[in-house]
């Protein structure tokens, strides 16, 4: 079974702090994704990565950056956290080799609260 783990389930930070959210997958997947989930807005893509050191902006990259130094690890960074970044953050991975599915496997999520 694919396993995607996220470093924290719940996180509380203060405005202006630098925040690191870590995601690790154990299935050698090339693609990794960061989403945020907000009520009424669904899952919105922040950044994604096809390969080590590769990254692409998603739909809402402002205020975020990412790092992928190793294939299994994809980090989301909030350079200076703001209250409007309070959200559920979900990491996912997938492999382009999967037959037709493009199925993404998700981690359990990190509930971030910025005070």
């Amino acid at each position, binding site marked *: 079974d694919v396993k995607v783990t996220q470093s924290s*389930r719940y996180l509380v930070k203060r405005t202006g702090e630098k925040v690191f959210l870590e995601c690790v997958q154990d299935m050698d997947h090339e693609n990794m994704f960061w989403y945020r989930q907000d009520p009424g807005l669904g899952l919105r893509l922040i950044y994604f990565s096809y390969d080590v050191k590769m990254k*692409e902006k998603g739909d809402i990259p402002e205020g975020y950056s990412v790092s992928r130094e190793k294939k299994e690890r994809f980090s989301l960074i909030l350079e200076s956290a703001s209250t409007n970044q309070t959200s559920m953050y979900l990491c996912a991975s997938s492999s*382009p080799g999967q037959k037709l599915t493009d199925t993404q496997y*998700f*981690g359990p999520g990190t509930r971030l609260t910025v005070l």
Partner: protein
Amino acid sequence: DQQVKQNSPSLSVQEGRISILNCDYTNSMFDYFLWYKKYPAEGPTFLISISSIKDKNEDGRFTVFLNKSAKHLSLHIVPSQPGDSAVYFCAATLLSGNTGKLIFGQGTTLQVKP
């Protein structure tokens, strides 16, 4: 611009009856569609998918229907069970684009009453 829309935020059905969740999309280039289910405090899990070359895909109690001319898909759950209570997201992608990128709808919260 919301390319994938789920216009019903919530749905409540009685156990044993049919649940129908709807999804509309605007981009006619999308060629693959997926449904995910999400329980509270868990990540979404893949449920069922359909290619644009088909109009129906069935997996046990779950059936997805695709109407390309209407740019509409629906998920039918028959019979509904209390354990089906969750948030359901539809998603669309362009397989030929080969990015692995999914576009998600806003989600519909399904409540199945015993």
